[in-house]
C-alpha cells in the first residue's frame, strides 16, 4: 500500500535525452566540418607504371636542361609550341610523353611542359630524371 505512489512514479520516469542530443549534434557538426577540408586542383599523369625499357623508345620526348629552356630532340622549343607538337604526334600513334629533366631545371617548368602536353591530348606524361 505504501509503495504504490513510488511504483507509479517509476512507471512515468523517462531518461532525459536532451544532453545526449546536444552531444550527438556537436559530434555531427564536427564531422561535417572536418570532412572535405582539402580541395586541390592539379594534373594527373594517369600513367600505369610500365617497364622502364618501353619508356626509352617513347614516340615523343622533351628535355629540360638546367638552362631553363625546353628542347625536343635537341632543338629548342617554345612552351606554347608543345601542345601543337603533341597534337600532331597524337594523330599518328598513342601519345605517351617522356619529359627528361636535368638537375637544375625548375619543377614549375616541368609542370608546365606536362600541362601543355596534356593540353595537346597526351595520354600519359612521365618524368625521367637524368643523372648529373
Amino acid at each position, binding site marked *: 500500500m505504501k509503495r504504490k505512489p513510488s511504483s507509479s512514479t517509476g512507471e512515468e520516469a523517462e531518461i532525459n*535525452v536532451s544532453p*545526449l*542530443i546536444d552531444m*550527438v*549534434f556537436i*559530434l*555531427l557538426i564536427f*564531422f*561535417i566540418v*572536418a*570532412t*572535405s*577540408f*582539402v*580541395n*586541390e*586542383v*592539379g*594534373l*594527373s*599523369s*594517369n*600513367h*600505369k*607504371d610500365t617497364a622502364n625499357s618501353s619508356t626509352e623508345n617513347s614516340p615523343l620526348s622533351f628535355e*629540360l636542361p638546367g638552362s631553363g629552356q625546353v628542347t625536343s630532340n635537341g632543338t629548342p622549343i617554345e612552351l606554347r609550341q608543345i601542345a601543337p607538337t603533341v597534337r600532331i604526334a597524337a594523330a599518328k600513334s598513342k601519345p605517351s610523353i617522356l*619529359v627528361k*629533366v*636535368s*638537375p*637544375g*631545371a*625548375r*619543377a*614549375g*617548368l*616541368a*609542370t*608546365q611542359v*606536362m*600541362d*601543355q602536353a*596534356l*593540353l595537346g591530348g597526351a595520354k600519359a606524361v612521365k*618524368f*625521367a*630524371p*637524368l643523372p648529373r
Partner: protein
Amino acid sequence: MRKRIRYSEDDGKESINVSPLIDVVFILLIFFIVSATFVSLPGVEISRPRTETAESLERNSILFALSGQDEIFHAGKKVKLREVPGLIEKASKDRAKPVVIQVDQWADATIMAKLVAKAGKNNTSVSIATRKPK
C-alpha cells in the same frame, strides 16, 4: 471545473517525441564518422605552378609537399625520399588512396621526377597540385 483540471494535466505531460530525430541524427553521425578521413597537411607554404588543364583532384588523398629548398614534407614533418613508399603504405591502410604532390615551382625538377616515380611505384595514382590560371 473538472474539465479544466484535466486539460492542464494533459498540457503538463505533453512533449515532442524525439526518438525519430535521434535516429536520423545518429544515422547521419555514423555516416560522417565512416566517411571522415582526416587529411594531414604537409605543413609548408608552397608556391604552386599555374597550369591550364588543372582539374579537381580527389579530396581523400595522401599529401606530400616538395618545397622550394628541395625538401620533402609529409604530415608536418620533413621526410627522406626513400621513406615515401612506406609512408604511403602506412597512410593508405587497406584501401588504396591517391597521392597528391604539392610541388613548389622553384623546386628541382629531378627531385620531383624521383618523388613522382617513388610515389607511383605500387600503381598509385599520382597527381601534382597546381593553380588555375588567372
